[in-house]
Every structure is written in structure tokens, then in C-alpha cells.
């Protein structure tokens, strides 16, 4: 039990008085979070990302519903804006019907706010107590205790959405607000969807904490593309808990550029054989930014494949973290798991920490993991310059090439282009470090 966690929850926990099942879960989440407190570096899974220190910087106040126009400052843009989609917009953690585009949804597709779903009497059997593996559980507990709104996306059996769905999060932080958002994403058997998520913020310090509970039915397919572009003083925690049924596919690509301190957590659990999950992350950080990519894949059943790839560019005094954990259950034969972290350091003061963890209890499996930390190849730079390409352009070309393993294979063409353009725009302000 810690005073910091107590004080935080007193100010920010969601009020009780909702449905009884939810109150019960929220109380349990509060108790669980207060018990452990904000994770700090003495907790192995949080060794490189000390949330006690990050959260101690300010007195957080709960975000409130914000009305009226949202004016994005210069340089803030939803990179997926021009892609025809159904769009659900949240501002400061609350659904904004007036900014969303949710008309003409096909039959079998439900896209509503969490608040609306709860008001309509929907009971989420697992979403609020699926705390996931120990590595990320403190955050799912915090989120369950504090989340007031979010999105509920449900696609019925056999429905394949021909247009993507976008979840757009804007945070306009005039005060040090804390936003806790919970999304529930469910695909029925044989359903498929492309989900584009954008997270953009501005103003002063704020906390953006989002947890998405993803449940994929048999043979369903979710392509999940995210841009994490939080404000310069933001702390962001972005957690995906994915339950993947037999022969289903979860494919995620994340581009992370924003925030002062951030942690991208992904926990995949295979619930049926023949399933596949992959999580690819590209991050570009500078100044004193900190980004932690933590992924846990639970091969609970046989014959599933998983891949995690994180490629990061660190300039200035930025720090990166990759924690990859693969668990293969005793009976989960023929599991195939790959994890790789590659970091490119552009400055002497940038730092990278990579930590693989394998817990393998089956014998007929393939598990590979690796990590590289390097700098721009001087030979390649000399070669490009010797062909007349100026040093800055040559560096950008090589950095783009480094990230291409992540961005090149995005399965949605317009989104792929949008992600590449957003990554490239990072250079335009890249003056405060090694470039």
C-alpha cells in the first residue's frame, strides 16, 4: 500500500454507483492497485520504466468532458484523416458524438462509447477483470478502477468490414489531467476488421492511459495500426490484451513518436490452435523522451505462431526499452515464437535496454529472440555521399531503411503510406540531437 497510489485513486478513480457488477470489479481493481502501488524500478517488469518517479511530477486531476470545437495546433495531424472510415472520436478520454462518423454501419457491427454501452445495460463479463499477465497487471488494474469511457467495437460472426474503423484520441491538456480509457473490441468467428488508432495530444503534462481488451473469434482477423503521437510532456500507457481464438490473426503495427515517457504493452494469449499474432513497433525518440515496448505472448495451446519486432531510433538523450516475453505451456507443442529488438542510436547520450525472457515448458517448439543496438553505418553513409547525396538526406535514407522492416509490410496500403509519411515528418524537427 502506498500513499501515492491512495492519493491518486482518491482523486481519479471512477465513482461507484454504476451497475453492481461494475462497481464490484472497480472496487477489486482499486484494492489490487493500492496494494501494489505504482510500479517502480524495484519491480523487475518495471526496471527501466519507473512509474513512481514519472507520476510524482505533478498533482493529477481527473479529465472532464470537453465540448466545442477541437483545434489541433500546428504539427498535430491525424495521419489517417483522409482514409474513408467509420470514426469514433474521444476528447480528453470522453466520447464525442458530434466529431464522430458512425452512420450507415453495416448490419452486425456495433460501434458505441463505453458509457453508452453501460447505460444500455451491457455487461462486460471479462473486460474489467482481465488483468493480464503480471508484467502489465498494475496498469490494467489502475485502468479498471479509473476508466469512465472508451469505445466498444463489436463485429458479428462472418462480417468483414470493407472500410477501416478509426479510434481517434485527442488530449488537450490545459491542466495536468489524467485520462483513463477502456476499449472493448470483439470480433466474431470469421469476422475481419482494420482498426486505425491515433493518439495525439498537446498542451502541458497529462496522463493518457488506455487499455484495449481484444477478443478474436475463430478464424477472425484484426489488423491494428496505431500512431502514438502524444504531447511533449505527456505520460502515456497503452495496453492491448488480446485473446486470439483458433486460426484467428492479430496483426499490429505501431508508430510511436510522442510523449515524454511512454509504455506500449501488449499481452497476447492464444486460446485456440492455429492462431497467429504479430506486433511490430517503430519508434522515433529524441530529447529526453522515454519509450518502453513490452510484449508478453502466452502460447497456451499448440500450433500457434507469434512474432514481435521493435525497431527504434533514439536521438539526444532519449531512452528505449524492449521487454519481450514468450511463455510456452507444457503441452503447447509446435509453437513458433520470434522476438527481435533493433535500436539505432543517433547520439552518444541515447540509451537502449533490451531484455528477452523465455519460459518454455514444451520441447517441440521454435523460439528465437535477438537484439541489436548500433549506430548509422559509416560505410553506407560514405557510399551514399560519394554518389552526390548530401549527408542529411543520406542519414534520412538510412534511418528510413532501418525502419522499413516495420513500416513496409503494413497490410493496408493507404495506412502504410500515412505511417511512412508521419515517420518521415519526424526529421523536419530533428534538430535537438545527433542529426
Amino acid at each position, binding site marked *: 500500500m502506498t500513499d501515492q497510489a491512495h492519493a491518486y485513486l482518491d482523486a481519479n478513480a471512477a465513482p461507484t454507483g454504476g451497475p453492481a457488477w461494475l462497481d464490484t470489479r472497480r472496487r477489486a481493481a482499486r484494492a489490487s492497485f493500492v496494494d501494489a502501488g505504482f510500479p517502480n524500478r524495484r519491480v523487475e517488469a518495471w526496471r527501466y520504466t519507473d512509474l513512481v518517479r514519472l507520476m510524482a511530477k505533478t498533482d493529477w486531476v481527473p479529465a472532464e468532458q470537453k465540448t466545442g470545437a477541437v483545434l489541433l495546433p500546428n504539427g498535430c495531424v491525424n495521419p489517417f484523416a483522409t482514409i474513408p472510415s467509420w470514426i469514433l472520436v474521444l476528447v480528453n478520454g470522453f466520447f464525442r458524438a458530434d466529431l464522430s462518423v458512425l452512420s450507415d454501419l453495416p448490419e452486425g457491427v456495433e460501434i458505441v462509447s463505453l458509457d453508452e454501452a453501460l447505460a444500455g445495460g451491457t455487461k462486460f463479463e471479462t473486460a474489467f477483470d482481465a488483468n493480464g499477465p503480471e508484467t502489465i497487471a498494475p496498469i490494467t488494474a489502475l485502468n479498471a478502477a479509473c476508466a469512465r469511457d472508451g469505445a466498444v467495437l463489436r463485429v458479428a460472426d462472418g462480417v468483414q468490414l470493407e472500410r477501416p474503423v478509426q479510434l481517434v484520441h485527442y488530449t488537450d491538456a490545459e491542466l495536468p489531467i489524467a485520462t483513463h480509457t477502456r476499449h472493448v473490441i470483439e470480433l466474431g468467428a470469421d469476422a475481419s476488421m482494420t482498426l486505425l488508432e491515433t493518439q495525439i495530444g498537446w498542451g502541458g503534462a497529462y496522463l493518457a492511459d488506455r487499455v484495449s481488451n481484444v477478443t478474436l473469434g475463430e478464424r477472425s482477423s484484426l489488423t491494428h495500426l496505431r500512431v502514438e503521437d502524444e504531447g511533449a510532456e505527456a505520460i502515456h500507457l497503452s495496453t492491448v490484451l488480446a485473446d486470439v481464438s483458433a486460426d484467428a490473426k492479430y496483426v499490429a503495427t505501431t508508430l510511436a513518436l510522442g510523449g515524454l515517457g511512454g509504455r506500449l504493452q501488449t499481452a497476447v494469449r492464444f486460446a485456440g490452435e492455429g492462431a497467429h499474432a504479430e506486433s511490430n513497433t517503430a519508434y522515433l525518440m529524441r530529447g529526453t523522451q522515454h519509450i518502453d515496448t513490452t510484449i508478453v505472448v502466452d502460447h497456451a495451446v499448440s500450433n500457434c505462431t507469434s512474432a514481435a519486432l521493435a525497431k527504434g531510433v533514439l536521438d539526444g538523450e532519449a531512452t528505449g526499452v524492449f521487454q519481450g516475453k514468450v511463455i510456452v505451456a507444457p503441452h503447447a507443442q509446435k509453437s513458433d515464437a520470434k522476438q527481435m529488438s533493433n535500436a539505432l542510436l543517433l547520439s552518444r547520450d541515447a540509451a537502449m535496454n533490451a531484455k528477452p525472457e523465455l519460459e518454455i515448458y514444451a520441447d517441440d517448439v521454435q523460439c528465437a529472440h535477438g537484439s541489436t543496438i548500433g549506430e548509422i553505418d559509416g560505410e553506407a553513409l560514405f557510399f551514399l*555521399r560519394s554518389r552526390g547525396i548530401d549527408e542529411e538526406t543520406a542519414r534520412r535514407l538510412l534511418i528510413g531503411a532501418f525502419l522499413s522492416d516495420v513500416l513496409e509490410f503494413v497490410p493496408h496500403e493507404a495506412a502504410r503510406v500515412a505511417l511512412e509519411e508521419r515517420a518521415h515528418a519526424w526529421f523536419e524537427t530533428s534538430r535537438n540531437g545527433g542529426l
Partner: protein
Amino acid sequence: MLEIKDLHASVDGTPILKGISLSIGKGEVHAIMGPNGSGKSTLSNVLAGREDYEITGGSITYKGKDLFDLAIEERAAAGIFLAFQYPIEIPGVTTMTFLKTAVNAQRKARGEEELDAVRFLKLVRAKAALLNVSDDMLRRPLNVGFSGGEKKRTETLQMSLLEPSLAILDETDSGLDIDALKVVAEGVNALRTAERSMVVITHYQRLLDYIVPDFVHVLAGGRIVRSGGKELALELEETGYANVGESAA
């Protein structure tokens, strides 16, 4: 075109070039031969501007300008081209993207209009066909998974597109079998003009059967110890480098 006077250069404090003087006129092809460690590659790298070398004395004048005043990319834009002994692999950048970036960077530096995608594609296709560089190679990441011959043909394609006034071929024959060597040599010969000078650096006389030089220089111990016509290469083939070095000493 190029005037090297009493050039001294070191790597990590160790002198490698110890007073090289060489004059290369417009349209001339000069071969520089010598044993391993004689400074051949150092000379080519110093000309291209590689930063690992320290110039400790002498001068290089290129087209009337002090070469040392020009950055690597400025030398390229001014027409200096170094064909690498071991071409660099660049995963993630397709050959086509690289070629277009390079050609347009040089055009821009010279104040010329950049080529749009259509015009560039037409140009590159025509030149690639002559060098047997396939569309597939153009679409693949630069040099990744290319054979030795494919790499050298791609280097030659770069030369053909960039149209340098001074091409330095650093051990172009290394890693090539005789058939691949012939294809590359034909490509290089097709680029010989009265305006374009070449420096052909090689350990072996073999390459000079195919790219016939106007002048041959022998580099040993960081100095040019003998110069002559193309027949000097044949003489070296018979006598070896040891005798040349001794006769000069």
C-alpha cells in the same frame, strides 16, 4: 583534369601515401597497379573524400579547384565517381530509389532540373538494359542478395547514369569470374569518351586486357615507382612487383 602533387596521407597516424605526384588529362585512362598494402585503395578513397584518412601534405587540384575544399557529395556533383571494390548493401532502399535520389541530388547541386519519375524510369531502363541489369534488380534493395557480377554491373550502371568526368575504379575485377569481368569491362569501355578520364586501380594485369589504359603507374610503399605505357602492365605480369620496387629503390 586532375593534378596530384606530393600527396602524403596517413591512417591512424601511420603514413600510407608518401609523396604521390600524378597528372591526369581529359579523356585519359590511367591504370594504377601495385601489390597489397602499397596504398592503391588509400589513393582512391582520398580522392573520393573518405574521412578516415588524414592528409599530411601535398595538394590535389581537380578542374582547377582545390579538391580538399569539397565535401564528399560536392566532389560527386563535380564529377568524381568512385566505383567501390566491395559495393555496399543497403537493405530497405531499393536500387531504383537510390539511383533516382543520387541522380537528382547531383542535378540539383549543379542547378539542373530534377527528373520526374517517368523520365527517370525511361532513362534508367535504357541504361540498365545495356548492362544487363534486370527490372527485378532495380526493384530489390540495393545490392542485397546480388552476386558479385550483379553488384559490379549495378556500380557501372550508377556510373553510366551519373556521367562523371573522373571515374575511379577501385579493384573492379575483385570478386568477378572472367565472364562477369568481360561484361563489366564492356560496360566501362562503352563509357570511355574524349571528355571522361578514368583511374583504374588493380592488383592484376588481367583487368587491363579488357580495359586498356593509356598510362600505367606502379605504386609501391606509398610512392609511384614507375610510370609507362600499357606495355608496362605486361612487363609486370612477367617480372612481378618485387623487381619494380627494387629497381626504383
